[in-house]
């Protein structure tokens, strides 16, 4: 049973254990224009497993920053934090495993000449809410 958007849970978990702060340097599901930070957007993902209900969710972490080095540094922190991490819980989900789907990608610059980088991470998880 889904109760909370997965991306919000993941971001809250990330904010708790990293240098990022929600709505200051980390936003879930939205793009904050003209602001340096990380924007987590849920990406189209595979269907949940029919038998077990295991959910596969890919999340794109976009870094937008005037300082390219800082954008890269922030995404590196996320990369190291989530890649091959296993068996951990967020507020509403139990994450079996998470891994990066590639490397940090250069996505050009935005209209204000700030650098855009992107990192995709795939989460394999289950809802912690009991199924009735």
């Amino acid at each position, binding site marked *: 049973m889904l109760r909370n958007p997965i991306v919000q849970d993941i971001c809250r978990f990330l904010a708790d254990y990293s240098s990022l702060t929600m709505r200051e340097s980390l936003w879930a599901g939205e*793009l904050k224009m003209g602001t340096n930070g990380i924007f987590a957007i849920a990406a*189209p993902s595979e*269907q949940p497993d029919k038998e077990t209900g295991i959910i596969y969710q*890919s999340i794109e972490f976009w870094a937008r920053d005037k300082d390219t080095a800082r954008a890269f540094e922030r995404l590196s922190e996320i990369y190291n934090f989530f890649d091959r991490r296993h068996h951990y819980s967020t507020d509403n989900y139990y994450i079996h495993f998470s891994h990066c789907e590639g490397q940090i990608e250069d996505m050009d610059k935005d*209209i*204000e000449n700030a650098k855009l980088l992107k990192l995709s991470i795939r989460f394999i998880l289950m809802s912690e809410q009991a199924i009735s």
Partner: protein
Amino acid sequence: MGVRVEDKMPGFVRMNEAAMERALKRMRNDIFVLSQFKAPYEGGELRASGEQMQRGRLKHRVQYGATGAQGYASYQHRGMRRDGSRVVKRYTTAGTGKQFLADSGKIIAPKSGQYFKREAESVRV
């Protein structure tokens, strides 16, 4: 003694198509996010008019201005009127520019191989 041949092709075809669909969705999603970062900004109406959708099997679209401001969106995208007049010379937000959607597509399109490869790897029969 006998040999049993199991045909997994139908399953493979089904899962392969789903993977290709996902790859296109992810490309569409990235083009949309990138175009949102690049679209001219004054009051936010143009950016708010952006949307992405699936138009059918393996058909996806990102568009701006469908909610009544299509003329304005295409004018901003061209940076001028269709006849070449009224060229936008000064943008309210520094660095704002025309071709925000086409440019986003040009960045993502050459990477299409990566998107398809990534999703194809997830196909298991």
